[in-house]
């Protein structure tokens, strides 16, 4: 009885696996102006983001964390997408990403590689993994004006 091997191409696309194995912008920013961290208590995924915001621009971003390939690739791609952009752009990217995953809206124009995560919407229990990074980013952006906390 030969049953074809199940396919996960929609979920584990090459670009996602690449970011999961080789995360971009991983580490700390000693001169961060804003920081936030978040936890998914159900699965134990953890993400912390450091931002250096200068004149409304995200001059630099680093993240730390542990968790599944979806949570870690998501924040890695997100970091690439918002780096060098204005905080307003970052909010727009965050909004488009959430809409893609939770409202089945077609990927917005500013998502870049993040578009690869569109298939996660078909795995409802994994959507929260993909959203942890944007949640922490929004928290970090909301720290504007207050000194960065440890």
């Amino acid at each position: 009885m030969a049953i074809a091997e199940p396919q996960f191409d929609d979920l584990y696309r090459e670009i996602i696996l690449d970011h999961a194995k080789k995360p971009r912008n991983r580490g700390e920013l000693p001169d961060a102006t804003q920081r936030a961290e978040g936890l998914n208590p159900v699965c134990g995924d953890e993400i912390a983001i450091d931002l250096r915001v200068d004149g409304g621009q995200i001059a630099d971003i680093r993240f730390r964390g542990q968790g599944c390939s979806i949570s870690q690739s998501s924040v890695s791609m997100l970091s690439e997408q918002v780096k060098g952009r204005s905080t307003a752009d970052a909010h727009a990217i965050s909004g488009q990403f959430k809409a893609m995953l939770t409202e089945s809206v077609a990927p917005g124009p500013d998502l870049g590689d993040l578009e690869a995560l569109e298939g996660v919407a078909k795995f409802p229990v994994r959507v929260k993994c993909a959203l942890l990074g944007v949640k922490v980013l929004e928290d970090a952006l909301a720290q504007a004006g207050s000194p960065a906390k440890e």
Partner: protein
Amino acid sequence: MGMFDAARIREDFPILAQTVNGRPLVYLDNAATTQKPRQVIDALVRYYETTNANIHRGIHTLAQQATEQYEAVRGKVAAHIGAGRPEEIVFTRNATESINLVARAWADMHVGEGDEVVLTLMEHHSNIVPWQLLARRKGAVLRYVGLTPGGEVDLDHLRELVGPRTKLVSVVHASNVLGTINPVADIAAIAHSAGALVLADGAQSAPHLPVDVAALGVDFFALSSHKMLGPTGVGVLWARHSLLEEMDPFLGGGEMISLVRQEHSTWADVPHKFEAGTPNIADVIAFGAAIDYLGGLGMANVREHEKAITAYAMDTLLRIPGVSLHGPMDVEHRGGAVSFAVDGVHPHDMSTIADGHGVAIRAGHHCAQLLMRRLQVSATNRASFYVYNLPEEVDALVESIEHARRVFADGDS
């Protein structure tokens, strides 16, 4: 495996006949909840179709029948766990509520400021949080017994921790993560020598091995119906009759009173004192059918079957490069909950890929965050076996693990 025929047993479980994601369902999440045999489902339907009535007060025929059927299950549970008297069986909603009942109705009377409750690092949150709440109410102190590198309770550490202030030692009988079967009789002897009482959380032992609360020497024992072929919404607290007699009620309301006056009431006899309000009559009665089913298989046979399939699973998993196991390696000291790690594959990814193969396993902290910290992991994969599982199902799990390793392999896949 001799008389024990898991393939035959499967025919009693309608849910197992289905396919999931185009493949035969391989259900290996039995530590979370077990599937239900037709006999249990039929008992539930039969009760609602022929007997449904409220119990204990009615004079009419259906009320008498429902009362008799409900009360008969106490005797079945008592016999299943070696309890002396059916009145020692208190029905609750689940094992968690059973432990909370002890934390309120017994511990509130006996544990004061500076008194100690001893737990272990392998407890389920259900045997941690009720005691944290008690500690907050009473100013009591929680102490945690460490584990050996092999994933067993460190009895030497327990001996050090237990002292004159220890009022209770509350331990899991069989771990839902490590599989460890704890030497509860030894633990009880150590606790009793210091004058402390002992609670065993039997949610993962009563379904899988012969249990005799008298031989274990414990004072309280908690179990859950849905982890042993029965419906959700039914738990059991067993306690020695003398303890139940002296304990305060847990919840107040109907069923649990004798006389009610404007300012005070007197309590019904044990065990009704602890069963306020209309209980979960239908599910308790169907739980009786689950105990009958397990009795028909024989708990010693259940245990032998699980030892065999657990040994096969551990042996097979360890042959896969990059797979490691948590918990005791000797099946004599463990049950059928097998936690494993796959190098380079996070448990959530493993679980998603297994699901694609029709294989239901659990990924996460398994409501045991203290243990996850002790193991220095954030999550594990867990396969857990029961009476209807077959070696071929272990093979299906192995296939899914090999697939996951290919998806997450470095370089070419």
